[in-house]
């Protein structure tokens, strides 16, 4: 009789105003209405509750929403139960039945529109783009009294209750695009897919919730943290605009909306104010309509236009809504990302403190938050470290990329007999124990006897079994106490070195390194146990003996022949050049070096592989040193290097 037409009022409206694109809201309130792609920042489990009250003349409070969300990598899933998303209309059908001459009975109707629950899925493709869909389930309960004739022997008019429940699903998709930190966009469908029951009862046809397709585009401009602007335009010429912001842990905003089917032009406001922590968020919001909603509404307009949005239509009352969200896992918002890690050093377990000074890896991080952050890098290698080894904090400005070092402390109890390939886990943390990002890389962990060929690092082998060397050296010196006591005090170091060498070589034979492909260095106790070794092993063992009794040593690295490098020993006699005659009149048999006080001291080179006696080893050491280091300018050219053990 009277044609009905469809309306599309503010399908993107929700109860919290425009918070959908806000980074500072990490826990969602499941506002599928303005956020159909349900993009949000929650990283783990989140639960939400919305409780509100309507001012309809009386005061009705109800649970609007209970929701849960879960983030799995770049996938986020959410579900909500919305018992309070319902609108009930009561009216007289206009039909009356004359019961008798003086009495009539008016027939009543009750139409209820409900959105019962919704499901959401979103996929974050990259930092700029995410897309998703929402699926929402609606129920429409139509109940109406009718008068109906019943014909038997006589004709009667009876009153019947006519009812029909219509269910339908609504599916929408949305895309969020973050152009940069200041401009963000959202494109989403409205009523993209609707499928479900159609009314079969004539009386209810035309009263279904309107499901006209449309779309909305939203833009957000974020010039400051404390003040930003958002705008949503719907294809039906409705729009809303809002300003939101945050200061410290407080969030706030106000949304105004125009709905072409609501009066006045700006139909209402949605103010919001909230407080957030990493663990929970609470938001107090309201919907205030500029038109008086407590006046009686006419049936004719409802009949002609119906409704298309359950929570915001011309019959909606002013509301106040309290939203609570809890982050169950307390996983903080990710603030930095670990882009890449480069391992710059192999791991030699014996070099236990070398990685305290020299990072074994460097990571590249980027601050994706809007604030300056202190990043703590840390690393853990299974079987190598005891827990995570933290490196010093690095300060990174918003948006900046920075390189962070990863230092390492190797467990003292480590006993690596052979090289293994292990996984190194690299972490970057900002505020909590939960890392913001992590990366795993394979790392080669050498055996404890492995050496990188750098003579400097032989010091680690020298100092490894210092107690053993000390006991060994003291035993020898005590056995020769009479000799030492009868000498000049100035010759103490020289004679000790001589005695120790002569005892040392008695038990040793030269054995070349059996591990051709890998540098292998014995610890002093292993050399004594095996009664031999190559130049590295013998030099390490002899140095260890000398150092254990306080004689300063240096390793002489001969690099002339790349195929066969050689190491021998030089020790400090503590004699001055003037006192050198106490040990030799041949000034080519020693080498003058300045100590830390810039005083010249006499150093003597010893060829540790000459396993005859001290004099022979001295002669061979001097001969090699003079030839390669001095005559052939090895020291000047770098082909011969003197490396102080300490």
């Amino acid at each position: 009789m009277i044609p009905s037409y469809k309306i599309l009022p503010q399908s993107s409206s929700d109860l919290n105003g425009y918070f959908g694109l806000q980074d500072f809201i990490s826990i969602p309130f499941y506002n599928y209405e303005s956020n159909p792609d349900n993009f949000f920042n929650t990283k783990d489990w989140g639960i939400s509750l919305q409780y509100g009250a309507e001012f309809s003349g009386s005061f009705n409070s109800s649970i609007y929403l209970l929701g849960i969300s879960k983030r799995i990598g770049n996938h986020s899933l959410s579900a909500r139960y919305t018992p309070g998303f319902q609108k009930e209309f009561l009216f007289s059908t206009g039909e009356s039945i004359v019961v008798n001459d003086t009495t009539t009975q008016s027939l009543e109707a009750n139409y209820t529109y409900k959105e019962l629950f919704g499901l959401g899925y979103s996929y974050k493709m990259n930092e700029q783009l995410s897309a998703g869909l929402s699926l929402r389930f609606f129920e429409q309960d139509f109940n109406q009294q009718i008068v109906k004739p019943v014909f038997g022997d006589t004709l009667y008019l009876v009153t019947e209750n006519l009812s029909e429940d219509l269910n339908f699903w609504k599916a929408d998709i949305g895309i969020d695009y973050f152009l940069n930190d200041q401009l963000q966009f959202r494109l989403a469908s409205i009523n993209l897919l609707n499928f479900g029951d159609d009314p079969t009862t004539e009386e209810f046809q035309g009263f279904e919730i309107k499901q006209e397709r449309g779309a909305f585009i939203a833009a957000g401009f974020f010039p400051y943290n404390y003040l930003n602007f958002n705008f949503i335009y719907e294809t039906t010429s409705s729009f809303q605009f809002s300003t939101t912001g945050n200061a410290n842990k407080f969030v706030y905003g106000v949304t105004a909306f125009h709905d072409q089917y609501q009066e006045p032009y700006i139909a209402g406001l949605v103010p919001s104010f909230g407080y957030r922590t990493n663990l929970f968020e609470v938001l107090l919001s309201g919907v205030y309509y500029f038109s008086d909603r407590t006046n009686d509404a006419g049936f004719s307009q409802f009949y002609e236009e119906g409704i298309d949005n359950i929570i915001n239509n011309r019959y909606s009352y002013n509301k106040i809504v309290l939203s609570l969200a809890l982050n169950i896992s307390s996983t903080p918002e990710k603030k930095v990302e670990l882009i890449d890690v480069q391992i710059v050093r192999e791991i030699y377990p014996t070099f236990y403190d070398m990685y305290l000074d020299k990072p074994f890896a460097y990571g590249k991080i980027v601050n994706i938050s809007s604030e300056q952050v202190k990043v703590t890098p840390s690393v853990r290698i299974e079987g190598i470290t005891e827990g995570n080894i933290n490196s010093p904090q690095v300060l990174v400005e918003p948006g900046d990329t920075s390189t962070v070092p990863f230092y390492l402390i190797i467990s003292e109890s480590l006993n690596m007999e052979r090289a293994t390939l292990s996984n190194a886990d690299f972490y970057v943390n900002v505020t909590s124990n939960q890392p913001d990002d992590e990366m795993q890389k394979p790392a080669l962990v050498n055996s404890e006897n492995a050496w990188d060929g750098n003579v400097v690092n032989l010091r680690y082998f020298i100092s490894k079994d210092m107690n053993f060397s000390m006991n060994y050296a003291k035993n020898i010196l005590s056995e020769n106490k009479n000799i030492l006591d009868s000498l000049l005090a100035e010759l103490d170091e020289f004679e000790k070195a001589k005695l120790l060498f002569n005892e040392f070589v008695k038990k040793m034979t030269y054995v070349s390194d059996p591990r051709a492909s890998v540098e292998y260095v014995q610890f002093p106790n292993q050399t004594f146990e095996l009664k031999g070794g190559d130049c590295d092993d013998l030099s390490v063992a002899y140095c260890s003996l000398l150092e254990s009794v306080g004689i300063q040593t240096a390793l002489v690295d001969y690099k002339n022949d790349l195929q066969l490098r050689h190491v021998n020993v030089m020790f400090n006699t503590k004699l001055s050049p003037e006192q050198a005659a106490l040990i030799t009149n041949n000034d080519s048999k020693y080498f003058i070096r300045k100590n830390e006080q810039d005083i010249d001291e006499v150093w003597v080179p010893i060829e540790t592989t000459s396993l005859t006696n001290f004099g022979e080893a001295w002669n061979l050491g001097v001969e090699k040193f003079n030839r390669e280091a001095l005559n052939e300018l090895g020291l000047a050219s770098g082909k011969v290097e003197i490396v102080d053990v300490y």
Partner: protein
Amino acid sequence: MKKILTYLIISTSVFLLVSCDKPAPTQLVDDTNNDYEVELLNKDLENYISSGSDTSGVTQDLTGLTNLISVSGIKITTSKGTISTSLAQAMFFDKSKPIYYSDGKLLGYRTIIPGIIKFNETEANIVPYRLKFREEGIQKDTLIGNRYLLYNIFGGVPDPFYFNYNAQVSFEFSTFIGGNTVTFPILTPKEITGNVVFTGKSINKNLEATLNWNTDGIGKVSIIIGLIRPNQITSIPVYRFRTRDDGEIRIPARLINQLPLYRFEKIVFTFVRSYEGYHDYGDNDLLVSSQSIHSIVIEIP
């Protein structure tokens, strides 16, 4: 802290869920002008007895109880065309002379003829007034007296009484003895002309009727739906709808399709726009009525 908050929010949710209301409903006020009353006029369609008081058989409840002065302009539209008639009648009852059914139930009162009545200065005829009724399954009639009657079926025949629409009919009463005269005008309503869009088929039970008429915009109209048996001319009134005089009503399909239409040949939609006024004279209430009637007779498809 985290656990406490989790338990707190879950327990709060459960508490609120079981304790709170549902959102407030909206009570809609009927501003459609589409409201109507429906009244069942006859329960027994098999044994209906017409009072024969007018050609449509549906307009007045002439049960012999209420003193009545009535003028009517009547149109009857059939497939052959439209016939216009005018009717004026009056009847007065002697409440001291009741007539009862055999079971003691009041049937009516005997009429009296207190004087001379003129409508538009035409003297009304005095004719016998028989009341038809059914008792114990047998159709009976009884003469309860006389009544005043004028009717003009065609061009002033048999009586030169013309019903003037949207105007007035003059009424004059003179006693036989003493010559006291009472006169007053009876206002008449605007002529009503109806139209029926009747679709569907009875066998499919999908008949639908949408009725339109020329609206007067004020007051109400009555629409009476009646049925006519095959080979008969008397309509059996079934429903009376009373609705605003806004020009349109859609008859709920169920009210038509649930009727035993297979026993009837025609359906009659009668549009009635009337002015009525009761005058209280103690035990002798007087109903003064003027009405415009348009009956449309349609073969049941």
